[in-house]
């Protein structure tokens, strides 16, 4: 659906060309959810804007199906690519339905009059993003997650085969974030759209996207999430860091240096929640340690020489371990 070869993106600063990415090649098929990932400043937004024809390419060629992007008139392009920027601006007094109606503009007359069919499409799009009940609400009275869904409804209304979104999950809480990405994936499946979104949420991208475009140091690497993980392409970022990408799940994991040595008896070792907590807090099992922990009768017992303490929760237990450590085991 969309592809480019040897594409260079960038912009002009004081009429000096500033190339952000050069010679990058990638493609996306119909019905695919593509996640564009990369650190800050690697040119994700620049690439998205270049693909949306909002700024010219500095070199190379972008193709939509078998036609060059450059050859599209703005009218045809507005029926081919919908774009959702990362701007969160909300105009005063605009209602949700009025904003979604703007998605029909490529199909309306000079005054922007909507046909009854346009209005049905607007309501369908709102329904699709589970925001029909918000239709008459003013934009400044809905939540950030709702606002993002309304933005997506507007793009849906535009009835384009391609939708580009610049960080649609930024500033959203975890539930809204996943809701948006699952919504995008469903739209790809059900409406056979090509959806490309940039995100900083690598876990979600690696778990839900069909294809990853990974921008790094001016180049782009492309593949299924598994290709990216299998070849360890993301690993360079984690070298010398205390966290890493779990290749099994694509989730970010945190490593801890061994800070505390504790002798665990079988009752503690068989508690899987405590094992998780140990990894997080940097506790290592060492049979010779002076501190020992057991889990009896739903209570945690911590022993240090002659001192014995009992705790109701893992939180209290770990803070107990820390305190003794700080006091007696420098």
């Amino acid at each position, binding site marked *: 659906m969309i592809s480019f070869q040897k594409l260079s993106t960038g912009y002009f600063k004081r009429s000096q060309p500033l190339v952000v990415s050069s010679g990058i090649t990638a493609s996306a098929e119909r019905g695919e959810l593509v996640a564009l990932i990369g650190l800050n400043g690697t040119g994700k937004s620049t690439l998205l*804007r270049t693909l*949306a*024809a*909002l700024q010219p390419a500095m070199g190379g060629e972008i193709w939509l199906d078998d036609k060059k992007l450059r050859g599209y008139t*703005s*009218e045809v*392009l*507005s*029926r081919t*690519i*919908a*774009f*959702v*920027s990362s*701007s*969160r*601006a909300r*105009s*005063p*007094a*605009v*209602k949700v339905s*009025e*904003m979604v109606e*703007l*998605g029909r*503009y*490529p199909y*309306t007359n*000079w*005054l*922007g009059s909507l046909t009854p069919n346009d209005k049905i499409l607007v309501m369908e799009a709102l329904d699709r993003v589970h925001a029909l009940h918000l239709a008459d609400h*003013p*934009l*400044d009275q809905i939540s950030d997650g709702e606002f993002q869904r309304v933005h997506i409804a*507007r793009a849906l209304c*535009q009835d384009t085969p391609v939708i580009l979104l610049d960080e649609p999950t930024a500033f959203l809480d975890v539930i809204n974030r996943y809701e948006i990405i699952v919504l995008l994936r469903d739209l790809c499946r059900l409406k056979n759209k090509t959806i490309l979104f940039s995100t900083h949420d690598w876990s979600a991208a690696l778990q839900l996207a069909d294809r990853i475009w990974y921008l790094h140091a001016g180049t782009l690497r492309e593949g299924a999430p598994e290709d990216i993980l299998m070849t360890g392409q993301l690993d360079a970022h984690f070298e010398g860091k205390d966290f890493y990408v779990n290749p099994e799940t694509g989730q970010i994991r945190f490593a801890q240096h061994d800070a505390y040595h504790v002798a665990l008896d079988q009752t503690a070792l068989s508690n899987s929640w405590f094992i998780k907590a140990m990894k997080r807090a940097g506790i290592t099992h060492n049979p010779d340690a002076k501190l020992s922990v057991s889990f009896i009768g739903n209570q945690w017992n911590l022993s240090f020489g002659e001192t014995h303490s009992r705790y109701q929760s893992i939180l209290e237990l770990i803070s107990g371990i820390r305190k003794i450590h700080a006091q007696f085991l420098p």
Partner: protein
Amino acid sequence: MKHRSVILFLLLVIVLVILVCADLLTGTTRMSLHDFVHALTGNNHDPVLLNILTEFRIPRVVTALVAGASLSVSGLMMQTLFRNPLAGPYVLGISSGSALGVALLTMGFPGYVLSGSIPGQLNLFLAAFFGATAVLGIMLLLSLRLRDVFTMLIIGMLLGSAFSAIIGIMQYLSNESALKVFVIWTMGSLGGVTSEQIKILLPVFILGVILVIGAIKPLNALLLGEQEAKTLGINIIGSRVLLLVATGILTGLITGYCGPIGFIGVAVPHIARWFFRTGNHRVLVPAVMLTGASVLVCSDLISQLPGKGIILPVNAVTALIGIPVIVWVIVRRPIYPGNDN
């Protein structure tokens, strides 16, 4: 259009008609409703009353209608174009730009402004138009760099002060006859517009309104932001030029003939949005024009309340109406620096 909007439009028209009639009846010479109806229908041949109506009151009321509608719709366009709820012709220095244009013309080339003559009046309008458009252009360029609404406001006020200073220097340096032409202009008010000037005012106003109607679709698209508007197939540069010219014509026209009238342009769009509860410019453009016309006719009425030939400056009345609305907008809406980024 929704029922709410239709009812509000009907109400607004009724209010406007009542205000217009009341304003026509008000003035130094007493005129009863009876005299008024007879003068209009031509049954009464009191030439004095008829003369007062056709030469003074009707031009004044027509000017108030046109000025209220023009300034308010200019404010609406600027608020959408600049994505700034506090934008307006007066607060962003556009009116001062017009004044500077007029000052340059009257004190630089006083011969071109022969009072009363149609070409002279047209020159006056053109000077105000170019002054307004030039400042609009400057503010638009600045708005691309400065996203903060309050920064724009401060720069607008600074520009206004700078223009006043330049005008002051020009007044000091210019000769007596040229100065006289300019000072007469600065005394302009709604009532100062002659029936000759009305002959330019009305057609130019209609031209401006046609441009505004042509800009309704891009205005709505701009609510999404410029990038999105562009991907909706809207020609951004063309739309900007269209909005710039339409605003310049309407603001320049009114400032050129009535002098600067403040705060109507910022306040009325908010009043209309609040009444009509919409951001759609297809409703807002006529709503804002009707509301603006009503507010300015009402201000004109208030300015004549003291009676006995005393007329308050209409600018003072509009400020008292407009400033509370601006304060309300600032207090009610959290406008953080960089809010629209």
